[in-house]
């Protein structure tokens, strides 16, 4: 009898009529005043040069490009454009530092430098977070609470490994590779620099890093931290520029390893270019992750996981949960709850501490998102966009989801890399597995269920490098990250991530 009482009071599922009649109002009866971070306690310099061999050098190209804020469209600084000659200087500096200093240094001494860098990132985290949000458009609460703590954590974690590498590979001796060329994307500029630089240094390699052209500033501020930490000249070199600069780095004959995070298209080009060379390669590319919601999931928390999965960093996340697979029996209440939740998302000034959704990183990316959303509408999917006001300047896209999406539709297959979710349904766990794996990508996935056994059953069958259970977009330097299939190969983080930067004896 007692069971029955609580059962009958359960309000799910609601009918369409309930939804229409019982609307929640997320209005303006108590508004949050603007709460922007102050920007007067530091200065962005008008111009940044290349950081090569421990010195700031004007580019051989003589050229500079502007980096702008995607939320205001205002220029923030001029950035040196490195050409092949600059890349050559940087590789030479890195080779020199590798041969003479870094590979010869006692590992415990290397660790001290890396610890010092980690602490300096923590000390300057406020300034770094603000610059990250200005240059890239991401909300300050994310750069402050996710990007910066994780960037510092990656240096701390890898500092710990530097003198313990003999214990990382079951008794096999690890030797550094030499000079690593690293090309990083614009979605987590400082964090991706940390992911790449920290393990390379811990393993005894030196680095030439090329930041993305739309978000070079925090990597350059990181170079200033290297100077302050008195990292030996040439151990890390930063060469800014666009695709040609990156190509020069990839094709440089004296680079021993290329690590790339970015689009699958560019990743394929890099792999072709490296075919038949001695260079080692790791690629972390695109994704079209399935976030799978079973009917027995903790629904209100799953809604948070969906929002976190696709709207975190405006969906500019390679492991974003961009394909929502929902058990058909809860499709309606889930969509209802998701719409209400999206009504509370605050889009606007990335520097406002209450902003949930910042600016789209660039005009080009905005156009790409808009084109894919158009294709979704043409395919007949039903679109819902959060009812938020769009600022007059800058690049913005309201959080959006599509229902009635066919598995064959472009918005279900292509990576949108924006705040756009495709909602599909499934009927059985087997069907969920089949649909989740039916993609050329294999980076990540999420599973939401109250049954632990079901989560493990499913995780074993998903072809994805990272599988989250009852959570999404959680990162830790000790946990390896990387993909299957066209999401790339190699892992970053953890013991597994170290192996991308070492040669093993025996």
């Amino acid at each position, binding site marked *: *009898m*007692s*069971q*029955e*009482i*609580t*059962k*009958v*009071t*359960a*309000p*799910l*599922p*609601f009918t369409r009529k*309930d*939804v229409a*009649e*019982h609307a*929640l*109002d*997320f*209005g*303006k*009866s*108590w*508004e*949050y*005043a*603007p*709460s922007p971070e102050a920007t007067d306690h530091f200065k962005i310099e008008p111009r940044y040069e290349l950081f090569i061999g421990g010195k700031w050098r004007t580019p051989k190209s003589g050229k500079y490009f502007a980096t702008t804020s995607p939320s205001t469209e205002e220029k923030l600084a001029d950035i040196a454009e490195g050409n092949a000659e600059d890349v050559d200087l940087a590789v030479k500096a890195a080779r020199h530092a590798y041969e003479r200093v870094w590979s010869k240094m006692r590992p415990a001494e290397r660790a001290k430098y890396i610890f010092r860098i980690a602490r300096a990132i923590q000390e300057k985290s406020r300034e770094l977070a603000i610059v990250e949000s200005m240059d890239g458009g991401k909300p300050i*609460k994310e750069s402050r*609470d996710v990007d910066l703590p994780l960037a510092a954590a990656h240096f701390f974690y890898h500092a710990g490994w530097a003198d313990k590498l003999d214990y990382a590979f079951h008794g096999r001796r690890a030797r550094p590779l030499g000079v690593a060329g690293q090309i990083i994307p614009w979605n987590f500029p400082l964090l991706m620099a940390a992911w790449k630089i920290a393990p390379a240094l811990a393993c005894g390699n030196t680095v030439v890093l090329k930041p993305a052209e739309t978000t070079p500033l925090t990597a350059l501020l990181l170079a200033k931290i290297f100077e302050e930490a008195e990292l030996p000249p040439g151990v890390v070199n930063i060469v800014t520029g666009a695709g040609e600069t990156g190509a020069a780095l990839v094709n440089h004959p004296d680079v021993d390893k290329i690590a790339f995070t970015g689009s699958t298209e560019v990743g394929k080009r890099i792999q072709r270019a490296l075919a038949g060379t001695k260079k080692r390669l790791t690629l972390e590319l695109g994704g079209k992750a399935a976030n799978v919601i079973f*009917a*027995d*999931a*903790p*629904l*209100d*928390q799953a809604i*948070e*996981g969906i929002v976190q999965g696709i709207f975190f960093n405006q969906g500019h996340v390679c492991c974003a949960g961009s394909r929502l697979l929902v058990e058909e029996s809860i499709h309606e*209440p889930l969509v*209802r709850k998701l719409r*209400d939740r999206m009504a*509370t998302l605050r889009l606007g000034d990335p520097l406002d*501490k*209450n902003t949930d959704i910042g600016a789209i990183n660039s005009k080009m990316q905005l156009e790409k998102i808009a084109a894919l959303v158009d294709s979704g509408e043409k395919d007949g999917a039903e679109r819902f966009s959060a009812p938020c006001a769009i600022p007059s300047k800058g690049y913005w896209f309201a959080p959006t989801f599509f229902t009635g999406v066919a598995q064959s539709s472009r918005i279900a297959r292509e990576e949108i890399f924006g705040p756009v979710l495709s909602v599909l349904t499934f009927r059985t766990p087997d069907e969920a597995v089949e649909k989740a794996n039916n993609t050329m990508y294999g980076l990540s996935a999420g599973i939401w269920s*109250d049954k632990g056994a079901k989560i493990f059953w499913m995780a074993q069958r998903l072809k994805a490098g990272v599988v989250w259970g*009852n*959570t999404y977009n959680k990162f830790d330097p000790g946990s390896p990250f990387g993909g299957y299939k066209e999401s790339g190969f190699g892992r970053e983080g953890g013991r597994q991530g170290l192996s991308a930067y070492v040669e093993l004896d025996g």
Partner: protein
Amino acid sequence: MTAPHTLARPRAPHHSLFHSPPPSVDQVAVEERAASLGKRSLKKQSKVAGLKLAIAMMDLTTLEGKDTPGKVRALCHKAMLPLDRDPTIGPCAAICVYPNLVTVAKAALAGSPVKVASVATAFPSGQSPLSIKLDDVRRAVEFGADEIDMVIDRGAMLSGDYAKVFDEIAATKEACGPAHLKVILETGELGTYDLVRKASEIGIAAGGDFIKTSTGKVTPAATPPVTLVMLEAIRDHFYATGRRIGMKPAGGVRTAKQALHYLVLVKETLGDAWLTPDLFRFGASALLNDVLMQIEKERTGNYQAAEDFSKD
């Protein structure tokens, strides 16, 4: 308050094959969500507006063995005029006392909009026979209580006798007559969010106008995640029926910052309709002076000494 329910006393139903059990609650994720809403930055006018709203939602509470008519009269005065130098602040929503002090409070508050809430049903343990609990309720209402804060039978809840919990709430609702009923779950004794969710649904289905976290006599009392779980139960009930149930976190809310956190939880879970004393209350004794201090700080630019605020 919402319109009183004229429904006949609900009965525990016996046919429920087609309904799902209440949704489960993920502890990690709900605590994360509740904490993230504590990071909203509230400045200047939005801070002051929130704090004034919090005062209007306050059930100023004294529930002690040493309560006297003098103490209760002082508290009533504070509820009507929280800050002597600014009559635009307040009044509070209600005074919350034991049944023996209801008549004193009623007389002291005569002519003011401040309600009198009385705890009843063998508060705080609820470990007495139902007939005594119901007598307790009827007496408090006769004395003039506008609102009854009852406790559920946690022993029954924990031993799985949900029907007993339901029936007692329904009987108490009947005994309340015109008085509004707040159902205290004593979440600190329930142990899991899943059980909090289940108790919330029973409290709502059995006729509660409000659901309330705690007696204030058990630690932990109100917490943001427990409140969020209860707000989610209220939201699902609203989605299904259109009926708005009120929420009262009580105990452990001591600072203005905490109060604003709770208001953010309500605003972003249930929306504007719940930002009213009719549907949201704070049960607190120490909270008011901290809120007043913050309001005065925003007005004058300086913190004032604790002695500048009356201690009642």
